[in-house]
Protein backbone atom coordinates (compact mmCIF):
# COMPACT_ATOMS: atom_id res chain seq x y z
CA UNK A 1 0.00 0.00 0.00
CA UNK A 2 2.69 2.47 1.00
CA UNK A 3 5.02 1.65 -1.89
CA UNK A 4 2.81 0.11 -4.53
CA UNK A 5 -0.11 2.51 -4.71
CA UNK A 6 1.98 5.63 -5.50
CA UNK A 7 3.79 3.71 -8.25
CA UNK A 8 0.41 2.70 -9.64
CA UNK A 9 -0.87 6.29 -9.52
CA UNK A 10 2.22 7.45 -11.41
CA UNK A 11 1.75 4.77 -14.04
CA UNK A 12 -1.96 5.35 -14.59
CA UNK A 13 -1.79 9.14 -14.68
CA UNK A 14 1.32 9.11 -16.88
CA UNK A 15 -0.12 6.68 -19.42
CA UNK A 16 -3.40 8.60 -19.45
CA UNK A 17 -1.62 11.84 -20.25
CA UNK A 18 0.27 10.25 -23.12
CA UNK A 19 -2.87 8.70 -24.58
CA UNK A 20 -4.94 11.85 -24.28
CA UNK A 21 -2.46 13.66 -26.52
CA UNK A 22 -3.67 11.53 -29.43
CA UNK A 23 -7.37 11.67 -28.63
CA UNK A 24 -9.14 14.89 -29.48
CA UNK A 25 -12.51 13.70 -28.15
CA UNK A 26 -14.09 15.92 -25.52
CA UNK A 27 -14.30 13.25 -22.83
CA UNK A 28 -10.50 13.08 -22.68
CA UNK A 29 -10.24 16.83 -22.92
CA UNK A 30 -12.44 17.21 -19.85
CA UNK A 31 -10.40 14.77 -17.74
CA UNK A 32 -7.21 16.44 -18.93
CA UNK A 33 -8.45 19.84 -17.82
CA UNK A 34 -9.53 18.53 -14.42
CA UNK A 35 -6.19 16.83 -13.92
CA UNK A 36 -4.35 20.06 -14.73
CA UNK A 37 -6.52 21.95 -12.25
CA UNK A 38 -5.93 19.33 -9.57
CA UNK A 39 -2.18 19.73 -9.99
CA UNK A 40 -2.54 23.47 -9.51
CA UNK A 41 -4.71 22.96 -6.44
CA UNK A 42 -2.18 20.55 -4.90
CA UNK A 43 0.42 23.25 -5.46
CA UNK A 44 -1.69 25.79 -3.61
CA UNK A 45 -2.09 23.54 -0.59
CA UNK A 46 1.64 22.85 -0.64
CA UNK A 47 2.25 26.58 -0.19
CA UNK A 48 1.37 26.08 3.44
CA UNK A 49 4.25 23.60 3.72
CA UNK A 50 6.55 26.29 2.38
CA UNK A 51 5.32 28.92 4.79
CA UNK A 52 5.62 26.42 7.65
CA UNK A 53 9.20 25.57 6.72
CA UNK A 54 10.27 29.19 6.37
CA UNK A 55 8.64 30.16 9.66
CA UNK A 56 10.02 27.16 11.53
CA UNK A 57 13.60 27.71 10.36
CA UNK A 58 13.44 31.43 11.16
CA UNK A 59 11.79 30.96 14.56
CA UNK A 60 14.30 28.31 15.57
CA UNK A 61 17.16 30.65 14.64
CA UNK A 62 15.64 33.31 16.87
CA UNK A 63 15.01 30.86 19.72
CA UNK A 64 18.52 29.45 19.69
CA UNK A 65 19.98 32.93 19.18
CA UNK A 66 21.94 31.53 16.23
CA UNK A 67 24.39 33.99 14.60
CA UNK A 68 22.43 36.58 12.66
CA UNK A 69 19.13 35.73 14.36
CA UNK A 70 18.13 39.38 14.21
CA UNK A 71 17.85 39.06 10.44
CA UNK A 72 15.47 36.15 10.86
CA UNK A 73 13.28 38.51 12.85
CA UNK A 74 13.28 40.84 9.82
CA UNK A 75 12.17 37.97 7.59
CA UNK A 76 9.34 37.09 9.96
CA UNK A 77 8.23 40.73 10.20
CA UNK A 78 8.25 41.08 6.42
CA UNK A 79 6.28 37.88 6.01
CA UNK A 80 3.71 38.67 8.69
CA UNK A 81 3.20 42.22 7.40
CA UNK A 82 2.51 41.06 3.87
CA UNK A 83 0.19 38.26 5.00
CA UNK A 84 -1.80 40.64 7.18
CA UNK A 85 -1.98 43.49 4.66
CA UNK A 86 -2.87 41.11 1.86
CA UNK A 87 -5.76 39.38 3.60
CA UNK A 88 -7.43 41.74 6.05
CA UNK A 89 -9.54 43.70 3.57
CA UNK A 90 -10.60 40.71 1.53
CA UNK A 91 -9.77 40.70 -2.16
CA UNK A 92 -9.53 44.49 -2.16
CA UNK A 93 -6.32 44.19 -0.12
CA UNK A 94 -4.15 43.77 -3.19
CA UNK A 95 -5.67 46.49 -5.38
CA UNK A 96 -3.40 49.28 -6.68
CA UNK A 97 -2.93 52.04 -4.10
CA UNK A 98 -3.14 49.84 -1.01
CA UNK A 99 -0.26 49.64 1.46
CA UNK A 100 0.30 46.07 0.22
CA UNK A 101 1.00 47.33 -3.29
CA UNK A 102 3.01 50.30 -2.00
CA UNK A 103 5.35 47.85 -0.33
CA UNK A 104 5.45 45.84 -3.52
CA UNK A 105 6.43 48.86 -5.62
CA UNK A 106 8.78 50.61 -3.21
CA UNK A 107 10.50 47.70 -1.48
CA UNK A 108 10.02 44.53 -3.47
CA UNK A 109 10.46 45.90 -7.01
CA UNK A 110 13.65 47.93 -6.44
CA UNK A 111 15.37 45.08 -4.60
CA UNK A 112 14.40 42.68 -7.35
CA UNK A 113 15.58 45.03 -10.09
CA UNK A 114 18.88 45.51 -8.28
CA UNK A 115 19.45 41.80 -7.76
CA UNK A 116 18.82 41.38 -11.48
CA UNK A 117 21.21 44.24 -12.27
CA UNK A 118 24.02 42.50 -10.34
CA UNK A 119 24.28 40.39 -13.48
CA UNK A 120 25.92 43.29 -15.31
CA UNK A 121 28.85 43.08 -12.90
CA UNK A 122 28.98 39.31 -12.80
CA UNK A 123 28.86 38.92 -16.57
CA UNK A 124 31.97 41.13 -16.72
CA UNK A 125 33.88 39.29 -14.00
CA UNK A 126 32.92 35.89 -15.43
CA UNK A 127 34.11 37.00 -18.86
CA UNK A 128 37.43 38.17 -17.45
CA UNK A 129 38.03 34.94 -15.54
CA UNK A 130 36.78 32.42 -18.10
CA UNK A 131 37.75 33.89 -21.45
CA UNK A 132 41.42 32.87 -21.60
CA UNK A 133 42.81 31.22 -24.69
CA UNK A 134 43.96 28.09 -22.83
CA UNK A 135 42.60 25.49 -25.22
CA UNK A 136 41.02 25.46 -28.67
CA UNK A 137 37.63 25.23 -26.98
CA UNK A 138 38.08 28.24 -24.75
CA UNK A 139 39.61 30.18 -27.64
CA UNK A 140 36.50 29.60 -29.75
CA UNK A 141 34.33 30.67 -26.82
CA UNK A 142 36.34 33.84 -26.30
CA UNK A 143 36.64 34.85 -29.92
CA UNK A 144 32.94 34.49 -30.70
CA UNK A 145 31.98 36.39 -27.57
CA UNK A 146 34.35 39.19 -28.60
CA UNK A 147 32.98 39.32 -32.14
CA UNK A 148 29.42 39.58 -30.86
CA UNK A 149 30.28 42.21 -28.25
CA UNK A 150 32.21 44.35 -30.71
CA UNK A 151 29.04 44.96 -32.71
CA UNK A 152 28.09 47.63 -30.17
CA UNK A 153 31.36 49.48 -30.50
CA UNK A 154 31.95 51.84 -33.44
CA UNK A 155 34.86 50.35 -35.39
CA UNK A 156 34.74 52.50 -38.49
CA UNK A 157 34.92 50.48 -41.72
CA UNK A 158 35.29 47.20 -39.78
CA UNK A 159 31.83 47.62 -38.26
CA UNK A 160 30.04 46.45 -41.38
CA UNK A 161 32.10 43.26 -41.69
CA UNK A 162 31.68 42.59 -37.99
CA UNK A 163 27.89 43.04 -38.19
CA UNK A 164 27.69 40.51 -41.03
CA UNK A 165 29.89 38.03 -39.20
CA UNK A 166 27.93 38.45 -35.95
CA UNK A 167 24.58 37.86 -37.59
CA UNK A 168 25.95 34.85 -39.51
CA UNK A 169 27.19 33.28 -36.28
CA UNK A 170 23.84 33.88 -34.61
CA UNK A 171 21.78 32.40 -37.43
CA UNK A 172 23.94 29.54 -38.71
CA UNK A 173 26.36 27.74 -36.36
CA UNK A 174 24.41 28.92 -33.33
CA UNK A 175 21.31 27.32 -34.79
CA UNK A 176 23.12 24.04 -35.46
CA UNK A 177 24.42 23.85 -31.89
CA UNK A 178 21.03 24.65 -30.43
CA UNK A 179 19.35 21.95 -32.50
CA UNK A 180 21.88 19.35 -31.35
CA UNK A 181 21.31 20.32 -27.71
CA UNK A 182 17.53 20.45 -28.16
CA UNK A 183 17.40 17.00 -29.71
CA UNK A 184 19.63 15.61 -26.97
CA UNK A 185 17.44 17.16 -24.28
CA UNK A 186 14.38 15.77 -26.03
CA UNK A 187 15.78 12.24 -25.89
CA UNK A 188 16.98 12.59 -22.31
CA UNK A 189 13.70 14.08 -21.10
CA UNK A 190 11.45 11.60 -22.89
CA UNK A 191 13.53 8.69 -21.59
CA UNK A 192 13.29 10.15 -18.08
CA UNK A 193 9.51 10.44 -18.46
CA UNK A 194 9.30 6.78 -19.42
CA UNK A 195 11.56 5.77 -16.54
CA UNK A 196 9.25 7.63 -14.17
CA UNK A 197 6.06 6.20 -15.63
CA UNK A 198 7.39 2.64 -15.52
CA UNK A 199 8.61 3.13 -11.97
CA UNK A 200 12.29 2.63 -12.72
CA UNK A 201 13.28 6.09 -11.61
CA UNK A 202 11.72 6.51 -8.18
CA UNK A 203 14.28 8.27 -6.04
CA UNK A 204 11.88 11.21 -5.75
CA UNK A 205 9.47 8.97 -3.87
CA UNK A 206 11.77 8.44 -0.92
CA UNK A 207 11.99 5.30 1.21
CA UNK A 208 10.66 4.09 4.52
Amino acid sequence: MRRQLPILIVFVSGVFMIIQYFIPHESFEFIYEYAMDWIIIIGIFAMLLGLWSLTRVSVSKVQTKAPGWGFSVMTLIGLATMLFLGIYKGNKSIAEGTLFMDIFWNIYTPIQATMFALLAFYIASAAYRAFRARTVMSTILLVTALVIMLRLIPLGPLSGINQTLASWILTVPNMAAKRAIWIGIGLGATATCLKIIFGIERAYMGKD
Partner: protein
Amino acid sequence: MRYKNLRSSLVLTFFLFFLILPLSQILAQDDTLPPPPPTEVKAGDTPNDNGHSITITWKLSGDDGAGKKNVVAYEILRSESPTGEFVVRGMVPAGNNTYQDRGAKEKEDKNYFPPHKDFYYKVRAKTLNSYSESGVAGPAVAYGQWFHIGKLPVFVGTLAFTIMVLAFISLARKGKEFYVRPLAGIDAVDDAIGRATEMGRPILYILGLGSAADIATIASFTILNRIAKKTAEHKTKIIVPCNDPIVMSVAQETVKAGYLDAGRPDMYKEENIFYLTSMQFAYVAAVNGIMLREKTATNFYLGKFYAESLILAETGSVAGSIQISGTDELAQIPFFVAATDFTLIGEELYAASAYLGREPLLLGALKAQDLAKAIVMLSLALGALAASFHFGFFLKLFTVQM
Protein backbone atom coordinates in the same frame (compact mmCIF):
# COMPACT_ATOMS: atom_id res chain seq x y z
CA MET B 1 -32.26 28.20 -63.74
CA ARG B 2 -35.23 30.21 -62.75
CA TYR B 3 -36.22 31.03 -66.33
CA LYS B 4 -37.57 27.96 -67.89
CA ASN B 5 -37.84 28.98 -71.47
CA LEU B 6 -35.07 30.12 -73.61
CA ARG B 7 -36.77 33.16 -74.98
CA SER B 8 -37.31 34.86 -71.69
CA SER B 9 -33.73 34.20 -70.72
CA LEU B 10 -32.58 35.74 -73.98
CA VAL B 11 -34.69 38.77 -73.26
CA LEU B 12 -33.11 38.95 -69.87
CA THR B 13 -29.63 38.73 -71.33
CA PHE B 14 -30.52 41.51 -73.67
CA PHE B 15 -31.67 43.69 -70.82
CA LEU B 16 -28.67 42.82 -68.80
CA PHE B 17 -26.34 43.72 -71.52
CA PHE B 18 -27.80 46.96 -72.75
CA LEU B 19 -29.54 48.33 -69.74
CA ILE B 20 -28.41 46.97 -66.45
CA LEU B 21 -24.77 46.55 -67.20
CA PRO B 22 -24.05 50.20 -67.99
CA LEU B 23 -26.24 51.14 -65.09
CA SER B 24 -24.40 48.80 -62.81
CA GLN B 25 -21.14 50.34 -63.84
CA ILE B 26 -22.41 53.72 -62.83
CA LEU B 27 -23.71 52.29 -59.60
CA ALA B 28 -20.43 50.51 -58.97
CA GLN B 29 -18.82 53.88 -58.44
CA ASP B 30 -20.63 54.13 -55.13
CA ASP B 31 -20.57 50.42 -54.52
CA THR B 32 -24.20 49.70 -53.87
CA LEU B 33 -24.60 46.83 -56.27
CA PRO B 34 -24.13 43.50 -54.48
CA PRO B 35 -21.10 41.41 -55.44
CA PRO B 36 -21.56 37.92 -56.90
CA PRO B 37 -22.25 35.58 -53.97
CA PRO B 38 -19.83 32.92 -52.77
CA THR B 39 -20.55 29.58 -54.39
CA GLU B 40 -20.02 25.87 -53.70
CA VAL B 41 -20.54 26.39 -50.00
CA LYS B 42 -19.89 23.20 -48.05
CA ALA B 43 -20.25 22.54 -44.32
CA GLY B 44 -19.04 19.50 -42.47
CA ASP B 45 -17.55 18.24 -39.22
CA THR B 46 -14.07 19.62 -38.45
CA PRO B 47 -11.69 16.65 -38.46
CA ASN B 48 -9.42 15.76 -35.52
CA ASP B 49 -11.27 17.82 -32.94
CA ASN B 50 -13.26 17.48 -29.77
CA GLY B 51 -16.64 17.59 -31.52
CA HIS B 52 -17.69 21.18 -31.06
CA SER B 53 -16.92 22.68 -34.41
CA ILE B 54 -18.02 22.63 -38.04
CA THR B 55 -15.83 23.72 -40.94
CA ILE B 56 -17.36 25.77 -43.75
CA THR B 57 -15.64 26.20 -47.11
CA TRP B 58 -16.68 28.16 -50.18
CA LYS B 59 -15.54 29.45 -53.52
CA LEU B 60 -14.64 33.14 -53.42
CA SER B 61 -17.03 35.75 -54.77
CA GLY B 62 -16.26 36.93 -58.29
CA ASP B 63 -15.41 40.36 -56.93
CA ASP B 64 -12.88 39.09 -54.42
CA GLY B 65 -9.41 39.50 -55.84
CA ALA B 66 -10.91 39.68 -59.32
CA GLY B 67 -13.76 41.58 -60.97
CA LYS B 68 -14.40 44.79 -59.09
CA LYS B 69 -12.14 43.64 -56.24
CA ASN B 70 -14.41 45.35 -53.74
CA VAL B 71 -15.28 42.44 -51.44
CA VAL B 72 -13.84 43.21 -48.01
CA ALA B 73 -15.01 40.29 -45.90
CA TYR B 74 -17.19 37.23 -45.57
CA GLU B 75 -19.72 36.69 -42.85
CA ILE B 76 -20.69 33.17 -41.87
CA LEU B 77 -24.30 32.64 -40.81
CA ARG B 78 -25.87 29.66 -39.09
CA SER B 79 -29.36 28.37 -38.52
CA GLU B 80 -30.96 25.29 -37.02
CA SER B 81 -33.24 24.81 -40.02
CA PRO B 82 -32.77 25.63 -43.71
CA THR B 83 -35.61 28.14 -43.63
CA GLY B 84 -35.11 29.43 -40.11
CA GLU B 85 -33.43 32.60 -38.93
CA PHE B 86 -29.73 32.75 -39.76
CA VAL B 87 -27.42 34.44 -37.25
CA VAL B 88 -23.90 35.69 -37.88
CA ARG B 89 -21.31 33.36 -36.30
CA GLY B 90 -18.14 35.01 -37.48
CA MET B 91 -16.30 37.00 -40.08
CA VAL B 92 -13.11 36.53 -42.08
CA PRO B 93 -11.30 39.06 -44.27
CA ALA B 94 -11.56 38.81 -48.06
CA GLY B 95 -9.31 36.21 -49.66
CA ASN B 96 -10.22 33.50 -47.16
CA ASN B 97 -12.36 30.58 -48.26
CA THR B 98 -12.68 28.65 -45.04
CA TYR B 99 -14.04 29.21 -41.56
CA GLN B 100 -14.21 27.07 -38.47
CA ASP B 101 -17.39 27.65 -36.52
CA ARG B 102 -16.09 26.66 -33.13
CA GLY B 103 -17.81 26.76 -29.76
CA ALA B 104 -17.22 25.82 -26.15
CA LYS B 105 -17.62 22.26 -24.93
CA GLU B 106 -19.05 23.24 -21.53
CA LYS B 107 -22.86 23.16 -21.54
CA GLU B 108 -23.10 26.14 -19.21
CA ASP B 109 -20.95 28.28 -21.51
CA LYS B 110 -22.77 31.00 -23.47
CA ASN B 111 -20.92 29.92 -26.55
CA TYR B 112 -21.72 26.20 -26.18
CA PHE B 113 -21.67 24.33 -29.48
CA PRO B 114 -23.91 21.25 -29.33
CA PRO B 115 -22.54 18.15 -31.07
CA HIS B 116 -24.70 15.64 -32.94
CA LYS B 117 -27.12 18.32 -34.04
CA ASP B 118 -28.04 19.52 -37.55
CA PHE B 119 -26.91 22.98 -38.58
CA TYR B 120 -27.29 24.95 -41.82
CA TYR B 121 -24.90 27.58 -43.08
CA LYS B 122 -24.82 30.52 -45.47
CA VAL B 123 -21.87 32.67 -46.44
CA ARG B 124 -22.30 36.37 -47.12
CA ALA B 125 -19.83 38.32 -49.28
CA LYS B 126 -19.63 41.92 -48.13
CA THR B 127 -18.50 45.09 -49.84
CA LEU B 128 -18.50 48.40 -48.02
CA ASN B 129 -22.13 49.16 -48.79
CA SER B 130 -23.78 45.95 -49.88
CA TYR B 131 -23.69 42.22 -49.62
CA SER B 132 -24.89 39.05 -51.25
CA GLU B 133 -25.63 35.66 -49.77
CA SER B 134 -24.83 32.18 -50.93
CA GLY B 135 -27.28 29.32 -50.97
CA VAL B 136 -27.82 27.21 -47.87
CA ALA B 137 -25.37 24.41 -47.12
CA GLY B 138 -26.10 21.57 -44.77
CA PRO B 139 -27.20 19.86 -42.73
CA ALA B 140 -23.82 19.50 -41.03
CA VAL B 141 -23.18 17.72 -37.75
CA ALA B 142 -20.25 18.15 -35.37
CA TYR B 143 -18.83 15.11 -33.63
CA GLY B 144 -15.60 14.32 -31.80
CA GLN B 145 -12.85 12.01 -33.05
CA TRP B 146 -11.08 9.28 -31.10
CA PHE B 147 -7.75 9.59 -32.85
CA HIS B 148 -5.92 12.58 -34.29
CA ILE B 149 -4.69 11.42 -37.70
CA GLY B 150 -2.22 14.31 -38.00
CA LYS B 151 -0.40 13.05 -34.90
CA LEU B 152 0.28 9.63 -36.39
CA PRO B 153 4.05 10.29 -36.73
CA VAL B 154 4.18 11.12 -33.01
CA PHE B 155 2.25 7.98 -32.19
CA VAL B 156 4.72 5.85 -34.16
CA GLY B 157 7.61 7.67 -32.49
CA THR B 158 6.11 7.12 -29.04
CA LEU B 159 5.64 3.41 -29.63
CA ALA B 160 9.08 2.93 -31.14
CA PHE B 161 10.89 4.79 -28.37
CA THR B 162 8.91 3.08 -25.61
CA ILE B 163 9.73 -0.33 -27.09
CA MET B 164 13.41 0.60 -27.33
CA VAL B 165 13.57 1.71 -23.71
CA LEU B 166 11.72 -1.37 -22.45
CA ALA B 167 13.84 -3.69 -24.58
CA PHE B 168 17.12 -2.32 -23.26
CA ILE B 169 15.82 -2.38 -19.71
CA SER B 170 14.87 -6.01 -20.02
CA LEU B 171 18.32 -6.74 -21.46
CA ALA B 172 19.76 -5.04 -18.40
CA ARG B 173 17.52 -7.13 -16.14
CA LYS B 174 18.94 -10.24 -17.78
CA GLY B 175 22.37 -9.09 -16.68
CA LYS B 176 23.80 -7.61 -19.84
CA GLU B 177 26.50 -5.10 -19.04
CA PHE B 178 26.62 -1.79 -20.87
CA TYR B 179 29.62 0.40 -21.57
CA VAL B 180 29.31 4.15 -21.19
CA ARG B 181 32.13 6.56 -21.88
CA PRO B 182 33.50 8.65 -18.99
CA LEU B 183 31.96 12.08 -18.37
CA ALA B 184 34.18 14.75 -16.82
CA GLY B 185 31.39 16.36 -14.79
CA ILE B 186 30.48 13.01 -13.21
CA ASP B 187 34.06 12.03 -12.38
CA ALA B 188 34.38 15.32 -10.56
CA VAL B 189 31.51 14.58 -8.18
CA ASP B 190 33.46 12.21 -5.93
CA ASP B 191 36.43 14.55 -5.71
CA ALA B 192 34.13 17.45 -4.92
CA ILE B 193 32.49 15.57 -2.05
CA GLY B 194 35.88 14.39 -0.82
CA ARG B 195 37.14 17.96 -0.82
CA ALA B 196 34.23 19.13 1.33
CA THR B 197 34.93 16.31 3.79
CA GLU B 198 38.61 17.21 4.04
CA MET B 199 37.83 20.85 4.60
CA GLY B 200 35.07 20.03 7.08
CA ARG B 201 32.66 22.30 5.25
CA PRO B 202 29.14 21.67 3.99
CA ILE B 203 27.92 20.90 0.48
CA LEU B 204 25.26 23.06 -1.15
CA TYR B 205 22.79 21.49 -3.55
CA ILE B 206 20.50 23.76 -5.60
CA LEU B 207 17.66 22.14 -7.51
CA GLY B 208 16.96 25.28 -9.52
CA LEU B 209 13.77 27.18 -10.04
CA GLY B 210 11.77 24.36 -11.59
CA SER B 211 8.72 22.81 -10.00
CA ALA B 212 8.49 19.14 -9.06
CA ALA B 213 6.76 18.74 -12.40
CA ASP B 214 9.78 19.79 -14.48
CA ILE B 215 11.63 16.83 -15.92
CA ALA B 216 15.00 18.48 -15.28
CA THR B 217 14.09 18.83 -11.59
CA ILE B 218 13.07 15.17 -11.41
CA ALA B 219 16.38 14.15 -13.00
CA SER B 220 18.08 16.31 -10.40
CA PHE B 221 16.25 14.49 -7.56
CA THR B 222 17.86 11.22 -8.60
CA ILE B 223 21.29 12.86 -8.62
CA LEU B 224 20.58 14.42 -5.22
CA ASN B 225 19.73 10.98 -3.89
CA ARG B 226 23.11 9.56 -4.96
CA ILE B 227 25.00 12.57 -3.66
CA ALA B 228 23.16 12.47 -0.35
CA LYS B 229 24.18 8.85 0.03
CA LYS B 230 27.82 9.77 -0.52
CA THR B 231 27.69 12.70 1.88
CA ALA B 232 26.16 10.41 4.50
CA GLU B 233 29.04 7.99 4.02
CA HIS B 234 31.52 10.85 4.40
CA LYS B 235 29.55 12.40 7.29
CA THR B 236 29.44 15.70 5.43
CA LYS B 237 26.60 18.17 5.87
CA ILE B 238 24.41 18.83 2.82
CA ILE B 239 22.27 21.98 2.57
CA VAL B 240 19.35 22.08 0.14
CA PRO B 241 17.50 25.43 0.05
CA CYS B 242 14.37 25.15 -2.09
CA ASN B 243 12.20 27.56 -3.94
CA ASP B 244 9.08 25.45 -4.30
CA PRO B 245 7.27 23.75 -1.41
CA ILE B 246 6.63 20.53 -3.31
CA VAL B 247 10.23 20.42 -4.47
CA MET B 248 11.24 20.84 -0.83
CA SER B 249 9.03 17.94 0.23
CA VAL B 250 10.43 15.68 -2.45
CA ALA B 251 14.00 16.77 -1.68
CA GLN B 252 13.49 15.84 1.96
CA GLU B 253 12.28 12.37 0.98
CA THR B 254 15.11 11.97 -1.50
CA VAL B 255 17.88 12.95 0.90
CA LYS B 256 16.39 10.83 3.65
CA ALA B 257 16.38 7.86 1.29
CA GLY B 258 20.04 8.55 0.48
CA TYR B 259 20.94 8.48 4.18
CA LEU B 260 18.99 5.23 4.58
CA ASP B 261 20.90 3.70 1.64
CA ALA B 262 24.13 4.64 3.36
CA GLY B 263 22.90 3.08 6.59
CA ARG B 264 23.01 6.39 8.47
CA PRO B 265 19.35 7.41 8.95
CA ASP B 266 20.30 8.90 12.33
CA MET B 267 22.38 11.58 10.63
CA TYR B 268 19.55 12.92 8.48
CA LYS B 269 18.52 16.43 9.51
CA GLU B 270 15.33 17.74 7.97
CA GLU B 271 16.07 21.37 8.84
CA ASN B 272 18.90 21.36 6.28
CA ILE B 273 16.42 20.90 3.45
CA PHE B 274 14.24 23.95 3.73
CA TYR B 275 12.06 26.36 1.82
CA LEU B 276 12.97 30.03 1.33
CA THR B 277 10.66 31.80 -1.09
CA SER B 278 9.26 31.17 -4.54
CA MET B 279 10.28 34.51 -5.97
CA GLN B 280 13.35 34.17 -8.18
CA PHE B 281 15.62 36.96 -7.01
CA ALA B 282 14.66 36.84 -3.34
CA TYR B 283 15.61 33.18 -3.42
CA VAL B 284 18.93 34.04 -5.06
CA ALA B 285 19.65 36.77 -2.53
CA ALA B 286 19.22 34.29 0.28
CA VAL B 287 21.27 31.53 -1.39
CA ASN B 288 24.08 34.06 -1.98
CA GLY B 289 24.08 34.69 1.75
CA ILE B 290 24.16 30.98 2.58
CA MET B 291 27.19 30.40 0.32
CA LEU B 292 29.25 33.10 1.95
CA ARG B 293 28.15 32.50 5.54
CA GLU B 294 28.24 28.69 5.56
CA LYS B 295 31.43 28.72 3.45
CA THR B 296 30.22 25.80 1.38
CA ALA B 297 33.10 23.80 -0.11
CA THR B 298 31.14 22.38 -3.03
CA ASN B 299 28.10 23.75 -4.82
CA PHE B 300 25.87 21.73 -7.10
CA TYR B 301 23.49 23.54 -9.45
CA LEU B 302 21.45 20.88 -11.20
CA GLY B 303 17.98 21.42 -12.63
CA LYS B 304 16.12 24.30 -14.25
CA PHE B 305 17.90 27.65 -14.07
CA TYR B 306 17.14 31.06 -15.44
CA ALA B 307 18.93 34.42 -15.20
CA GLU B 308 20.05 33.67 -11.65
CA SER B 309 22.53 31.03 -12.87
CA LEU B 310 25.36 33.51 -13.23
CA ILE B 311 24.66 35.28 -9.92
CA LEU B 312 24.91 31.96 -8.12
CA ALA B 313 27.98 30.77 -10.01
CA GLU B 314 29.92 34.01 -9.52
CA THR B 315 29.10 34.26 -5.83
CA GLY B 316 30.15 30.66 -5.40
CA SER B 317 33.39 31.44 -7.13
CA VAL B 318 34.00 34.35 -4.73
CA ALA B 319 33.49 31.92 -1.87
CA GLY B 320 36.07 29.63 -3.45
CA SER B 321 33.71 26.69 -3.80
CA ILE B 322 34.14 23.90 -6.34
CA GLN B 323 31.08 24.15 -8.57
CA ILE B 324 29.34 21.51 -10.65
CA SER B 325 26.40 22.64 -12.74
CA GLY B 326 23.94 21.22 -15.21
CA THR B 327 20.78 22.42 -16.84
CA ASP B 328 18.59 21.88 -19.87
CA GLU B 329 17.82 25.60 -20.06
CA LEU B 330 19.65 26.51 -23.24
CA ALA B 331 20.09 30.21 -22.52
CA GLN B 332 21.87 29.51 -19.23
CA ILE B 333 24.34 26.82 -20.29
CA PRO B 334 26.89 29.40 -21.55
CA PHE B 335 27.06 31.06 -18.16
CA PHE B 336 27.50 27.80 -16.32
CA VAL B 337 30.18 26.77 -18.81
CA ALA B 338 32.02 30.05 -18.24
CA ALA B 339 31.66 30.37 -14.47
CA THR B 340 31.57 26.88 -12.95
CA ASP B 341 34.20 24.15 -12.90
CA PHE B 342 32.16 21.42 -14.58
CA THR B 343 28.95 21.64 -16.56
CA LEU B 344 26.55 18.91 -17.58
CA ILE B 345 25.21 20.18 -20.89
CA GLY B 346 21.58 19.39 -21.69
CA GLU B 347 21.22 15.65 -22.14
CA GLU B 348 24.22 14.98 -19.88
CA LEU B 349 22.10 16.16 -16.97
CA TYR B 350 19.58 13.43 -17.70
CA ALA B 351 22.33 10.86 -18.16
CA ALA B 352 23.96 11.77 -14.85
CA SER B 353 21.56 9.77 -12.70
CA ALA B 354 22.46 6.59 -14.57
CA TYR B 355 26.18 7.38 -14.35
CA LEU B 356 26.19 8.10 -10.61
CA GLY B 357 24.19 5.11 -9.48
CA ARG B 358 25.54 2.70 -12.11
CA GLU B 359 22.19 0.98 -11.86
CA PRO B 360 21.83 -1.43 -14.77
CA LEU B 361 18.22 -0.45 -15.47
CA LEU B 362 19.03 3.24 -15.77
CA LEU B 363 22.06 2.46 -17.94
CA GLY B 364 19.77 0.39 -20.14
CA ALA B 365 17.52 3.40 -20.69
CA LEU B 366 20.59 5.45 -21.55
CA LYS B 367 21.42 2.90 -24.26
CA ALA B 368 17.94 3.29 -25.67
CA GLN B 369 18.57 7.05 -25.84
CA ASP B 370 21.75 6.42 -27.82
CA LEU B 371 19.98 4.11 -30.23
CA ALA B 372 17.27 6.73 -30.78
CA LYS B 373 20.00 9.31 -31.30
CA ALA B 374 21.62 7.14 -33.94
CA ILE B 375 18.27 6.87 -35.71
CA VAL B 376 17.81 10.64 -35.55
CA MET B 377 21.29 11.19 -36.99
CA LEU B 378 20.61 8.73 -39.76
CA SER B 379 17.34 10.53 -40.52
CA LEU B 380 19.16 13.86 -40.61
CA ALA B 381 21.72 12.57 -43.07
CA LEU B 382 19.20 10.79 -45.29
CA GLY B 383 16.75 13.68 -45.01
CA ALA B 384 19.33 16.24 -46.10
CA LEU B 385 20.27 14.06 -49.06
CA ALA B 386 16.61 13.54 -49.95
CA ALA B 387 16.00 17.28 -49.75
CA SER B 388 19.03 17.96 -51.95
CA PHE B 389 17.47 15.77 -54.64
CA HIS B 390 14.03 17.26 -54.04
CA PHE B 391 12.37 14.20 -52.52
CA GLY B 392 9.70 15.74 -50.34
CA PHE B 393 8.31 12.51 -48.91
CA PHE B 394 11.01 12.20 -46.26
CA LEU B 395 10.03 15.45 -44.62
CA LYS B 396 6.43 14.28 -44.36
CA LEU B 397 7.51 11.49 -42.00
CA PHE B 398 8.33 14.08 -39.37
CA THR B 399 5.56 16.56 -39.99
CA VAL B 400 3.09 16.84 -37.15
CA GLN B 401 -0.25 18.58 -37.50
CA MET B 402 -1.47 20.26 -34.37
